[in-house]
């Protein structure tokens, strides 16, 4: 199989740069620096931890810092930013709970094609013993990415509401990001346990059902205008 890691890293850098440029132009220098600098640190640390804990293994051809690939992780802050930009279409930016809900729904849908392609080309693999679909993507992963999107949104949104002087918000985020990474490991482990328990109870059918709720039922509920969903979204 041909080595496409260079193409993956090129894509990651271009996407990161385009999103940074857009954020800089629409939200301003301060917010762009916060989202992308902190997002990069957050992703780098999270993926280092996942590699060390043997939940994830990257191709050796990737340029790396420590255990995590230094360029390929740029996909994640960029895709989180795209999910955040789309979430703003549905919910008020200042309504943190609604934004977290939309990030939880949008992030896995945007990351799933990347994960499926990454696994297909062996850019990365998931060596855990969890059940998988799409030729190697674990069932727990979309839920874990949803939790990651919501948690990152909470951290950014909560700190942006605090009135610090100068670069105070940025420094607060620099302290909060590694703490959130530690919490994310715990949350990912929890999601993994819940999904594996579901597999024991209802087999893979139940897991496909759970994916169907995340990927089909909730977006369709929004499109079909189910009132309860509208209330949840507005909250």
């Amino acid at each position: 199989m041909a080595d496409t890691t260079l193409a993956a890293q090129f894509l990651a850098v271009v996407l990161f740069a385009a999103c940074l440029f857009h954020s800089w132009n629409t939200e301003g220098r301060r917010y762009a620096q916060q989202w992308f600098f902190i997002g990069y640190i957050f992703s780098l640390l999270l993926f280092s931890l996942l590699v060390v804990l043997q939940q994830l293994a990257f191709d050796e051809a990737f340029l790396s810092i420590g255990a995590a690939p230094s360029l390929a992780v740029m996909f994640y802050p960029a895709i989180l930013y795209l999910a955040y930009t789309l979430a703003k279409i549905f919910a008020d930016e200042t309504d943190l709970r609604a934004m977290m809900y939309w990030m939880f729904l949008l992030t896995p849908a945007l990351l799933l094609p990347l994960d499926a392609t990454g696994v297909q080309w062996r850019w990365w693999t998931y060596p855990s013993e969890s059940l998988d679909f799409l030729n190697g993507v674990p069932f727990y992963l979309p839920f874990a990415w949803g939790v990651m999107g919501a948690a990152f949104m909470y951290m950014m949104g909560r700190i942006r509401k605090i009135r610090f002087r100068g670069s105070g918000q940025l420094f607060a985020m620099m302290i909060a990001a590694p703490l959130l990474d530690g919490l994310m490991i715990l949350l990912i482990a929890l999601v993994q346990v819940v999904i594996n328990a579901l597999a024991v109870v209802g087999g893979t059918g139940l897991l496909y059902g759970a994916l169907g709720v995340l990927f089909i039922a909730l977006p369709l509920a929004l499109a079909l205008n189910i009132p309860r969903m509208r209330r949840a979204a507005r909250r």
Partner: protein
Amino acid sequence: MHNAQWTMENAQCHSAFSIHHSAFSFLPCDIIFKSLRRIISHMNTSSFQFPLLALALLFLALLILDVLGGAAGAVYGAFAPALLWAIVLAVKGRR
């Protein structure tokens, strides 16, 4: 006035392609020039157009990689949730 503006843009476009003018003479230069300018100005100002454009290009690149890698049919199912969200956005994507 409109004619003068069109001539100016066409001249700029023609100067940009002047080296290969004969090779690109079949292209509708003014339309390409205006479309590019419109896309770039939208990218700077609109919060709605950019994510869709960026995601469309990203997914197109991933799709091409999947096709080149001879991916199994199931792998293409990974794009279905994003496609569904695109439909939801088309239906409900206005606050």
